[in-house]
Protein backbone atom coordinates (compact mmCIF):
# COMPACT_ATOMS: atom_id res chain seq x y z
CA UNK A 1 0.00 0.00 0.00
CA UNK A 2 2.94 2.26 0.68
CA UNK A 3 3.80 1.85 -2.95
CA UNK A 4 0.50 3.27 -3.91
CA UNK A 5 1.00 6.15 -1.56
CA UNK A 6 4.40 6.81 -3.05
CA UNK A 7 3.17 6.46 -6.55
CA UNK A 8 0.59 9.17 -5.99
CA UNK A 9 2.66 12.35 -6.23
CA UNK A 10 4.45 11.31 -9.41
CA UNK A 11 1.16 10.15 -10.81
CA UNK A 12 -0.53 13.45 -10.21
CA UNK A 13 2.44 15.43 -11.52
CA UNK A 14 2.49 13.49 -14.74
CA UNK A 15 -1.26 13.68 -14.98
CA UNK A 16 -1.03 17.41 -14.67
CA UNK A 17 1.44 17.43 -17.51
CA UNK A 18 -0.83 15.56 -19.87
CA UNK A 19 -3.81 17.43 -18.58
CA UNK A 20 -2.14 20.77 -19.08
CA UNK A 21 -1.19 19.76 -22.57
CA UNK A 22 -4.75 18.72 -23.34
CA UNK A 23 -6.08 21.88 -21.75
CA UNK A 24 -4.15 23.97 -24.23
CA UNK A 25 -5.54 21.95 -27.16
CA UNK A 26 -9.07 22.10 -25.84
CA UNK A 27 -8.91 25.80 -25.17
CA UNK A 28 -8.26 26.13 -28.90
CA UNK A 29 -11.33 23.95 -29.55
CA UNK A 30 -13.34 26.11 -27.20
CA UNK A 31 -12.33 29.23 -29.11
CA UNK A 32 -13.31 27.53 -32.37
CA UNK A 33 -16.69 26.32 -31.09
CA UNK A 34 -17.44 29.73 -29.54
CA UNK A 35 -16.57 31.48 -32.81
CA UNK A 36 -18.83 29.08 -34.70
CA UNK A 37 -21.69 29.77 -32.35
CA UNK A 38 -21.28 33.50 -32.84
CA UNK A 39 -21.14 33.17 -36.62
CA UNK A 40 -24.26 31.04 -36.58
CA UNK A 41 -26.10 33.60 -34.46
CA UNK A 42 -25.14 36.45 -36.80
CA UNK A 43 -26.28 34.43 -39.80
CA UNK A 44 -29.59 33.61 -38.14
CA UNK A 45 -30.17 37.29 -37.52
CA UNK A 46 -29.43 38.13 -41.16
CA UNK A 47 -31.60 35.27 -42.34
CA UNK A 48 -34.53 36.39 -40.17
CA UNK A 49 -34.19 39.89 -41.48
CA UNK A 50 -34.22 38.61 -45.09
CA UNK A 51 -37.37 36.65 -44.27
CA UNK A 52 -39.10 39.75 -42.90
CA UNK A 53 -38.13 41.89 -45.87
CA UNK A 54 -39.18 39.24 -48.38
CA UNK A 55 -42.57 38.88 -46.74
CA UNK A 56 -42.98 42.64 -46.94
CA UNK A 57 -42.01 42.60 -50.61
CA UNK A 58 -44.67 39.98 -51.31
CA UNK A 59 -47.34 42.10 -49.60
CA UNK A 60 -46.14 45.09 -51.55
CA UNK A 61 -46.46 43.20 -54.84
CA UNK A 62 -49.98 41.99 -54.04
CA UNK A 63 -50.99 45.58 -53.40
CA UNK A 64 -50.06 46.60 -56.93
CA UNK A 65 -50.79 43.37 -58.77
CA UNK A 66 -54.44 44.13 -59.45
CA UNK A 67 -54.06 47.84 -60.25
CA UNK A 68 -54.02 49.51 -63.63
CA UNK A 69 -51.04 49.26 -65.93
CA UNK A 70 -49.27 52.42 -64.81
CA UNK A 71 -49.69 51.83 -61.09
CA UNK A 72 -48.61 48.27 -61.64
CA UNK A 73 -45.41 49.28 -63.40
CA UNK A 74 -44.55 51.66 -60.58
CA UNK A 75 -45.31 48.97 -58.02
CA UNK A 76 -42.91 46.60 -59.73
CA UNK A 77 -40.23 49.30 -59.94
CA UNK A 78 -40.59 49.93 -56.21
CA UNK A 79 -40.51 46.20 -55.64
CA UNK A 80 -37.19 45.98 -57.40
CA UNK A 81 -35.83 48.61 -55.09
CA UNK A 82 -36.92 46.51 -52.12
CA UNK A 83 -35.32 43.47 -53.69
CA UNK A 84 -32.01 45.36 -53.88
CA UNK A 85 -32.21 45.98 -50.13
CA UNK A 86 -32.67 42.28 -49.54
CA UNK A 87 -29.71 41.43 -51.75
CA UNK A 88 -27.60 43.77 -49.66
CA UNK A 89 -28.27 41.42 -46.75
CA UNK A 90 -27.06 38.45 -48.76
CA UNK A 91 -23.91 40.45 -49.44
CA UNK A 92 -23.52 40.80 -45.68
CA UNK A 93 -23.87 37.02 -45.34
CA UNK A 94 -21.09 36.56 -47.84
CA UNK A 95 -18.95 39.04 -45.91
CA UNK A 96 -19.68 37.06 -42.75
CA UNK A 97 -18.45 33.86 -44.39
CA UNK A 98 -15.33 35.38 -45.87
CA UNK A 99 -14.63 35.11 -49.57
CA UNK A 100 -12.10 33.77 -52.06
CA UNK A 101 -10.14 31.07 -50.31
CA UNK A 102 -12.79 30.12 -47.78
CA UNK A 103 -15.58 30.14 -50.35
CA UNK A 104 -16.49 26.60 -49.46
CA UNK A 105 -17.70 27.60 -46.07
CA UNK A 106 -21.13 28.51 -47.44
CA UNK A 107 -22.11 24.87 -47.29
CA UNK A 108 -21.10 24.74 -43.69
CA UNK A 109 -23.61 27.44 -42.84
CA UNK A 110 -26.34 26.58 -45.30
CA UNK A 111 -28.77 25.54 -42.59
CA UNK A 112 -29.13 28.85 -40.70
CA UNK A 113 -29.26 30.75 -44.00
CA UNK A 114 -31.83 28.61 -45.80
CA UNK A 115 -35.11 29.90 -44.26
CA UNK A 116 -34.35 33.42 -45.47
CA UNK A 117 -33.13 32.18 -48.82
CA UNK A 118 -36.32 30.23 -49.44
CA UNK A 119 -38.52 33.20 -48.61
CA UNK A 120 -36.41 35.41 -50.89
CA UNK A 121 -36.76 33.00 -53.79
CA UNK A 122 -40.51 33.02 -53.28
CA UNK A 123 -40.59 36.82 -53.35
CA UNK A 124 -38.28 37.29 -56.31
CA UNK A 125 -40.05 34.68 -58.41
CA UNK A 126 -43.37 36.40 -57.71
CA UNK A 127 -41.86 39.72 -58.75
CA UNK A 128 -40.50 38.12 -61.90
CA UNK A 129 -43.83 36.50 -62.74
CA UNK A 130 -45.72 39.76 -62.34
CA UNK A 131 -43.25 41.59 -64.52
CA UNK A 132 -42.79 39.04 -67.29
CA UNK A 133 -45.49 36.40 -66.88
CA UNK A 134 -42.65 33.90 -66.90
CA UNK A 135 -41.05 31.50 -64.47
CA UNK A 136 -37.71 32.74 -63.24
CA UNK A 137 -34.96 30.20 -63.81
CA UNK A 138 -32.49 28.90 -61.25
CA UNK A 139 -29.68 30.61 -63.17
CA UNK A 140 -31.53 33.93 -62.99
CA UNK A 141 -32.07 33.59 -59.25
CA UNK A 142 -28.42 32.71 -58.78
CA UNK A 143 -27.35 35.65 -60.91
CA UNK A 144 -29.34 38.02 -58.72
CA UNK A 145 -27.57 36.60 -55.68
CA UNK A 146 -24.08 37.02 -57.11
CA UNK A 147 -21.60 39.83 -57.12
CA UNK A 148 -22.32 41.70 -60.36
CA UNK A 149 -18.62 42.29 -60.95
CA UNK A 150 -16.93 39.04 -59.97
CA UNK A 151 -20.03 36.86 -60.52
CA UNK A 152 -19.07 35.16 -57.30
CA UNK A 153 -22.27 33.93 -55.59
CA UNK A 154 -23.15 35.50 -52.27
CA UNK A 155 -24.87 32.25 -51.39
CA UNK A 156 -25.35 29.20 -53.57
CA UNK A 157 -28.91 28.46 -54.67
CA UNK A 158 -29.42 24.73 -54.95
CA UNK A 159 -32.09 23.04 -57.06
CA UNK A 160 -33.70 22.09 -53.73
CA UNK A 161 -33.94 25.72 -52.59
CA UNK A 162 -35.28 26.74 -55.98
CA UNK A 163 -37.91 24.01 -56.13
CA UNK A 164 -39.11 24.63 -52.59
CA UNK A 165 -39.30 28.35 -53.32
CA UNK A 166 -41.37 27.72 -56.47
CA UNK A 167 -43.63 25.51 -54.44
CA UNK A 168 -44.31 28.47 -52.12
CA UNK A 169 -44.81 30.71 -55.13
CA UNK A 170 -47.91 28.74 -56.12
CA UNK A 171 -49.56 29.86 -52.88
CA UNK A 172 -48.95 33.52 -53.68
CA UNK A 173 -50.19 32.98 -57.24
CA UNK A 174 -53.39 31.51 -55.84
CA UNK A 175 -53.94 34.71 -53.84
CA UNK A 176 -53.11 36.79 -56.90
CA UNK A 177 -55.56 34.89 -59.11
CA UNK A 178 -58.37 35.15 -56.56
CA UNK A 179 -57.83 38.86 -56.02
CA UNK A 180 -57.72 39.37 -59.78
CA UNK A 181 -61.16 37.79 -60.18
CA UNK A 182 -62.73 40.35 -57.86
CA UNK A 183 -61.38 43.17 -59.98
CA UNK A 184 -63.01 41.66 -63.06
CA UNK A 185 -59.74 40.50 -64.55
CA UNK A 186 -60.74 37.33 -66.37
CA UNK A 187 -57.47 36.35 -67.95
CA UNK A 188 -55.15 36.18 -64.96
CA UNK A 189 -56.94 33.27 -63.23
CA UNK A 190 -56.85 31.13 -66.37
CA UNK A 191 -53.18 31.92 -67.03
CA UNK A 192 -52.21 31.27 -63.42
CA UNK A 193 -54.19 28.02 -63.42
CA UNK A 194 -52.32 26.72 -66.44
CA UNK A 195 -49.02 27.84 -64.94
CA UNK A 196 -49.56 26.25 -61.53
CA UNK A 197 -50.90 23.06 -63.11
CA UNK A 198 -47.73 22.73 -65.17
CA UNK A 199 -45.49 23.33 -62.15
CA UNK A 200 -47.43 20.75 -60.19
CA UNK A 201 -47.15 18.11 -62.92
CA UNK A 202 -43.39 18.59 -63.06
CA UNK A 203 -42.99 18.47 -59.31
CA UNK A 204 -45.22 15.38 -59.09
CA UNK A 205 -42.60 13.65 -61.20
CA UNK A 206 -39.82 14.21 -58.65
CA UNK A 207 -39.29 10.97 -56.67
CA UNK A 208 -39.84 11.65 -52.96
CA UNK A 209 -36.42 10.36 -51.95
CA UNK A 210 -34.77 13.09 -54.02
CA UNK A 211 -36.44 15.91 -52.13
CA UNK A 212 -38.15 14.83 -48.99
CA UNK A 213 -39.47 18.24 -47.94
CA UNK A 214 -41.33 18.65 -51.23
CA UNK A 215 -44.07 16.11 -50.57
CA UNK A 216 -45.66 18.19 -47.79
CA UNK A 217 -45.39 21.31 -49.92
CA UNK A 218 -46.96 19.50 -52.87
CA UNK A 219 -50.06 18.96 -50.75
CA UNK A 220 -50.16 22.72 -50.24
CA UNK A 221 -49.64 23.27 -53.98
CA UNK A 222 -52.51 20.90 -54.71
CA UNK A 223 -54.73 22.84 -52.35
CA UNK A 224 -53.75 26.08 -54.06
CA UNK A 225 -54.40 24.59 -57.50
CA UNK A 226 -57.83 23.36 -56.42
CA UNK A 227 -58.64 26.87 -55.20
CA UNK A 228 -57.48 28.39 -58.47
CA UNK A 229 -59.51 25.86 -60.41
CA UNK A 230 -62.58 26.86 -58.42
CA UNK A 231 -61.93 30.49 -59.30
CA UNK A 232 -61.73 29.54 -62.98
CA UNK A 233 -64.93 27.57 -62.61
CA UNK A 234 -66.84 30.57 -61.18
CA UNK A 235 -65.32 32.67 -63.88
CA UNK A 236 -66.56 30.34 -66.61
CA UNK A 237 -70.07 30.28 -65.14
CA UNK A 238 -70.06 34.05 -65.00
CA UNK A 239 -68.79 34.44 -68.55
CA UNK A 240 -71.51 32.11 -69.79
CA UNK A 241 -74.23 34.05 -68.02
CA UNK A 242 -72.90 37.33 -69.38
CA UNK A 243 -72.29 35.99 -72.85
CA UNK A 244 -74.96 38.25 -74.37
CA UNK A 245 -74.21 41.25 -72.12
CA UNK A 246 -70.49 42.01 -72.53
CA UNK A 247 -71.30 45.67 -71.74
CA UNK A 248 -72.30 44.84 -68.21
CA UNK A 249 -69.26 42.68 -67.72
CA UNK A 250 -67.01 45.54 -68.81
CA UNK A 251 -68.82 47.99 -66.62
CA UNK A 252 -68.57 45.75 -63.57
CA UNK A 253 -64.90 45.15 -64.18
CA UNK A 254 -64.08 48.83 -64.38
CA UNK A 255 -66.18 49.48 -61.29
CA UNK A 256 -63.83 47.45 -59.16
CA UNK A 257 -60.70 49.40 -59.94
Amino acid sequence: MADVMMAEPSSSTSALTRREHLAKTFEAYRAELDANTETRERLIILSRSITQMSKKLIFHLHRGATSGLVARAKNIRDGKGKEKEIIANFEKIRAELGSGESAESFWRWARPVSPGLEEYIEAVSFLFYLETGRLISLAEVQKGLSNPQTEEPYVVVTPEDYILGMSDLTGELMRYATNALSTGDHETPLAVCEFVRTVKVYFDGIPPYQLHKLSKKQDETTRSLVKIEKVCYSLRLRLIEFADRPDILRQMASRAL
Partner: protein
Amino acid sequence: MSAATDNKGRIANVDATLTSVIGQLETEANVKKAIRESLEPIEEFSRSALTELNKLHSAPASDQAAICERCLATVAKAQPLWADVSKLIPKGEFYRYSFAIGPLCRSFVTSIAFARFILHDELVPAFTAANLMGLGGDDTGELQLTADDYLQGVIGMVNELPRLSINAVTAQNFALPVKIAAFVNDVFQSYSLLNLRNDQLRRRFDSLKYDLKRCEDVVYDLTLRGLTAGTAAEANGEKTNA
Protein backbone atom coordinates in the same frame (compact mmCIF):
# COMPACT_ATOMS: atom_id res chain seq x y z
CA MET B 1 -53.51 35.69 -81.28
CA SER B 2 -50.53 37.34 -79.70
CA ALA B 3 -52.03 36.25 -76.40
CA ALA B 4 -51.99 32.69 -77.67
CA THR B 5 -48.37 33.05 -78.73
CA ASP B 6 -47.58 34.60 -75.38
CA ASN B 7 -49.23 31.72 -73.65
CA LYS B 8 -47.34 29.15 -75.69
CA GLY B 9 -44.14 31.05 -74.99
CA ARG B 10 -44.87 31.05 -71.29
CA ILE B 11 -45.58 27.34 -71.23
CA ALA B 12 -42.39 26.64 -73.19
CA ASN B 13 -40.45 28.76 -70.72
CA VAL B 14 -41.91 26.87 -67.78
CA ASP B 15 -41.14 23.55 -69.45
CA ALA B 16 -37.54 24.44 -70.20
CA THR B 17 -36.86 25.93 -66.78
CA LEU B 18 -38.35 23.07 -64.80
CA THR B 19 -36.85 20.35 -66.97
CA SER B 20 -33.44 21.87 -66.40
CA VAL B 21 -33.79 22.26 -62.65
CA ILE B 22 -35.17 18.76 -62.20
CA GLY B 23 -32.22 17.51 -64.23
CA GLN B 24 -29.88 19.32 -61.86
CA LEU B 25 -31.67 17.79 -58.89
CA GLU B 26 -31.16 14.35 -60.35
CA THR B 27 -27.49 15.03 -61.01
CA GLU B 28 -27.10 15.95 -57.37
CA ALA B 29 -28.95 12.87 -56.25
CA ASN B 30 -26.52 10.86 -58.35
CA VAL B 31 -23.52 12.56 -56.78
CA LYS B 32 -24.91 11.75 -53.36
CA LYS B 33 -25.46 8.14 -54.36
CA ALA B 34 -21.99 7.85 -55.84
CA ILE B 35 -20.44 9.23 -52.67
CA ARG B 36 -22.41 6.83 -50.54
CA GLU B 37 -21.27 3.92 -52.67
CA SER B 38 -17.67 5.08 -52.59
CA LEU B 39 -17.88 5.08 -48.80
CA GLU B 40 -19.08 1.49 -48.58
CA PRO B 41 -15.69 -0.24 -48.89
CA ILE B 42 -14.26 2.23 -46.38
CA GLU B 43 -17.06 1.39 -43.97
CA GLU B 44 -16.05 -2.24 -44.31
CA PHE B 45 -12.59 -1.38 -43.02
CA SER B 46 -14.05 0.78 -40.29
CA ARG B 47 -16.15 -2.15 -39.08
CA SER B 48 -13.15 -4.48 -39.19
CA ALA B 49 -11.07 -2.06 -37.16
CA LEU B 50 -13.74 -1.95 -34.46
CA THR B 51 -14.16 -5.73 -34.50
CA GLU B 52 -10.42 -6.09 -34.05
CA LEU B 53 -10.46 -3.76 -31.06
CA ASN B 54 -13.35 -5.69 -29.60
CA LYS B 55 -10.89 -8.51 -28.95
CA LEU B 56 -9.18 -6.36 -26.34
CA HIS B 57 -11.98 -7.22 -23.94
CA SER B 58 -11.10 -10.90 -23.78
CA ALA B 59 -7.40 -10.82 -24.65
CA PRO B 60 -4.55 -11.15 -22.12
CA ALA B 61 -2.51 -8.02 -21.53
CA SER B 62 0.34 -9.38 -23.59
CA ASP B 63 -1.77 -9.50 -26.76
CA GLN B 64 -3.11 -5.97 -26.53
CA ALA B 65 -0.35 -4.20 -28.40
CA ALA B 66 -0.61 -6.60 -31.32
CA ILE B 67 -4.38 -6.13 -31.51
CA CYS B 68 -3.99 -2.38 -31.60
CA GLU B 69 -1.35 -2.54 -34.30
CA ARG B 70 -3.62 -4.73 -36.41
CA CYS B 71 -6.42 -2.25 -35.87
CA LEU B 72 -4.27 0.66 -37.06
CA ALA B 73 -3.11 -1.44 -40.01
CA THR B 74 -6.73 -1.97 -40.98
CA VAL B 75 -7.38 1.74 -40.74
CA ALA B 76 -4.36 2.33 -42.95
CA LYS B 77 -5.75 -0.01 -45.60
CA ALA B 78 -8.63 2.41 -46.11
CA GLN B 79 -6.28 5.31 -46.84
CA PRO B 80 -6.10 5.00 -50.64
CA LEU B 81 -9.87 4.73 -50.91
CA TRP B 82 -10.47 8.27 -49.67
CA ALA B 83 -9.06 9.64 -52.90
CA ASP B 84 -12.01 8.03 -54.74
CA VAL B 85 -14.42 9.79 -52.43
CA SER B 86 -12.62 13.07 -52.82
CA LYS B 87 -12.86 12.97 -56.62
CA LEU B 88 -16.64 12.83 -56.39
CA ILE B 89 -16.97 16.00 -54.33
CA PRO B 90 -17.16 19.20 -56.40
CA LYS B 91 -14.74 21.90 -55.41
CA GLY B 92 -15.75 23.81 -52.32
CA GLU B 93 -18.59 21.47 -51.45
CA PHE B 94 -17.13 19.29 -48.72
CA TYR B 95 -19.59 20.55 -46.15
CA ARG B 96 -22.46 19.79 -48.50
CA TYR B 97 -21.75 16.10 -48.21
CA SER B 98 -20.24 15.96 -44.74
CA PHE B 99 -23.53 14.54 -43.42
CA ALA B 100 -22.58 11.30 -45.20
CA ILE B 101 -18.86 11.33 -44.41
CA GLY B 102 -19.00 12.48 -40.79
CA PRO B 103 -20.28 9.29 -39.14
CA LEU B 104 -17.53 7.30 -40.82
CA CYS B 105 -14.85 9.74 -39.67
CA ARG B 106 -16.15 9.49 -36.11
CA SER B 107 -15.94 5.74 -36.22
CA PHE B 108 -12.33 5.87 -37.43
CA VAL B 109 -11.40 8.39 -34.76
CA THR B 110 -12.88 6.04 -32.17
CA SER B 111 -10.70 3.16 -33.41
CA ILE B 112 -7.56 5.22 -33.77
CA ALA B 113 -7.86 6.97 -30.43
CA PHE B 114 -8.55 3.63 -28.76
CA ALA B 115 -5.51 1.93 -30.28
CA ARG B 116 -3.23 4.88 -29.60
CA PHE B 117 -4.36 5.09 -26.01
CA ILE B 118 -3.54 1.42 -25.40
CA LEU B 119 -0.26 1.69 -27.26
CA HIS B 120 0.98 5.09 -26.12
CA ASP B 121 -1.29 6.17 -23.26
CA GLU B 122 -2.12 9.35 -25.15
CA LEU B 123 -5.12 11.14 -26.61
CA VAL B 124 -4.31 11.11 -30.28
CA PRO B 125 -4.40 14.67 -31.67
CA ALA B 126 -6.88 15.38 -34.44
CA PHE B 127 -4.07 16.08 -36.86
CA THR B 128 -2.48 12.69 -36.24
CA ALA B 129 -5.82 10.92 -36.46
CA ALA B 130 -6.52 12.55 -39.82
CA ASN B 131 -3.10 11.47 -41.07
CA LEU B 132 -3.61 7.90 -39.92
CA MET B 133 -6.93 7.85 -41.75
CA GLY B 134 -5.24 9.13 -44.86
CA LEU B 135 -6.89 12.51 -44.96
CA GLY B 136 -5.03 15.72 -45.54
CA GLY B 137 -2.88 14.53 -48.43
CA ASP B 138 -2.94 16.09 -51.90
CA ASP B 139 -5.21 13.46 -53.35
CA THR B 140 -7.91 13.77 -50.69
CA GLY B 141 -8.55 17.38 -51.64
CA GLU B 142 -11.00 19.11 -49.38
CA LEU B 143 -11.81 16.05 -47.32
CA GLN B 144 -11.14 16.83 -43.72
CA LEU B 145 -11.67 15.62 -40.22
CA THR B 146 -13.85 18.28 -38.63
CA ALA B 147 -13.43 19.30 -35.01
CA ASP B 148 -16.93 18.08 -34.27
CA ASP B 149 -16.30 14.63 -35.74
CA TYR B 150 -13.00 14.33 -33.90
CA LEU B 151 -14.56 15.35 -30.60
CA GLN B 152 -17.46 12.93 -31.02
CA GLY B 153 -15.19 10.10 -32.12
CA VAL B 154 -13.06 10.49 -29.00
CA ILE B 155 -16.12 10.28 -26.77
CA GLY B 156 -17.14 7.11 -28.61
CA MET B 157 -13.83 5.65 -27.57
CA VAL B 158 -14.12 6.74 -23.95
CA ASN B 159 -17.55 5.06 -23.83
CA GLU B 160 -15.77 1.74 -24.40
CA LEU B 161 -13.25 2.14 -21.59
CA PRO B 162 -15.37 1.22 -18.56
CA ARG B 163 -16.09 -2.13 -20.17
CA LEU B 164 -12.41 -2.66 -20.89
CA SER B 165 -11.50 -1.70 -17.34
CA ILE B 166 -13.87 -4.28 -15.93
CA ASN B 167 -12.83 -7.04 -18.27
CA ALA B 168 -9.18 -6.29 -17.49
CA VAL B 169 -9.87 -7.05 -13.85
CA THR B 170 -11.58 -10.31 -14.81
CA ALA B 171 -8.45 -11.16 -16.77
CA GLN B 172 -6.33 -10.31 -13.72
CA ASN B 173 -4.80 -7.29 -15.45
CA PHE B 174 -4.82 -4.77 -12.59
CA ALA B 175 -2.61 -2.11 -14.15
CA LEU B 176 -4.88 -1.22 -17.02
CA PRO B 177 -7.82 0.07 -14.91
CA VAL B 178 -5.53 2.58 -13.20
CA LYS B 179 -4.21 3.78 -16.52
CA ILE B 180 -7.74 4.02 -17.90
CA ALA B 181 -9.09 6.00 -14.94
CA ALA B 182 -6.32 8.56 -15.19
CA PHE B 183 -6.88 8.92 -18.91
CA VAL B 184 -10.66 9.27 -18.70
CA ASN B 185 -10.24 11.84 -15.96
CA ASP B 186 -7.95 13.91 -18.18
CA VAL B 187 -10.27 13.64 -21.14
CA PHE B 188 -13.29 14.58 -19.05
CA GLN B 189 -11.56 17.65 -17.65
CA SER B 190 -10.56 18.67 -21.17
CA TYR B 191 -14.09 18.40 -22.52
CA SER B 192 -15.32 20.38 -19.55
CA LEU B 193 -13.45 23.34 -20.99
CA LEU B 194 -15.85 23.52 -23.93
CA ASN B 195 -19.05 25.56 -24.16
CA LEU B 196 -21.47 23.28 -25.93
CA ARG B 197 -24.77 23.92 -27.65
CA ASN B 198 -27.73 21.63 -27.15
CA ASP B 199 -26.56 19.33 -29.92
CA GLN B 200 -25.37 15.76 -30.20
CA LEU B 201 -21.92 16.58 -28.88
CA ARG B 202 -23.49 18.02 -25.74
CA ARG B 203 -25.55 14.89 -25.21
CA ARG B 204 -22.53 12.68 -25.67
CA PHE B 205 -20.46 14.83 -23.33
CA ASP B 206 -23.12 14.39 -20.68
CA SER B 207 -22.54 10.64 -20.90
CA LEU B 208 -18.83 11.02 -20.13
CA LYS B 209 -19.33 11.65 -16.44
CA TYR B 210 -20.86 8.21 -15.99
CA ASP B 211 -17.91 6.60 -17.75
CA LEU B 212 -15.55 8.49 -15.50
CA LYS B 213 -17.43 7.38 -12.40
CA ARG B 214 -17.41 3.75 -13.52
CA CYS B 215 -13.67 3.80 -14.25
CA GLU B 216 -12.90 5.44 -10.92
CA ASP B 217 -15.05 2.86 -9.15
CA VAL B 218 -12.89 0.06 -10.51
CA VAL B 219 -9.77 1.74 -9.16
CA TYR B 220 -11.48 2.19 -5.77
CA ASP B 221 -12.34 -1.52 -5.78
CA LEU B 222 -8.79 -2.53 -6.62
CA THR B 223 -7.19 -0.12 -4.18
CA LEU B 224 -9.40 -1.35 -1.36
CA ARG B 225 -8.23 -4.89 -2.02
CA GLY B 226 -4.62 -3.87 -2.44
CA LEU B 227 -4.59 -5.00 -6.03
CA THR B 228 -3.06 -1.87 -7.52
CA ALA B 229 0.24 -2.14 -5.66
CA GLY B 230 3.13 -1.70 -8.05
CA THR B 231 0.98 -1.60 -11.12
CA ALA B 232 -0.11 1.92 -10.32
CA ALA B 233 3.50 3.00 -10.26
CA GLU B 234 4.04 1.04 -13.43
CA ALA B 235 1.14 2.60 -15.25
CA ASN B 236 1.74 6.12 -14.09
CA GLY B 237 5.48 5.97 -14.47
CA GLU B 238 5.05 4.96 -18.06
CA LYS B 239 2.60 7.71 -18.66
CA THR B 240 5.21 10.36 -17.89
CA ASN B 241 7.42 8.87 -20.58
CA ALA B 242 4.67 8.80 -23.14
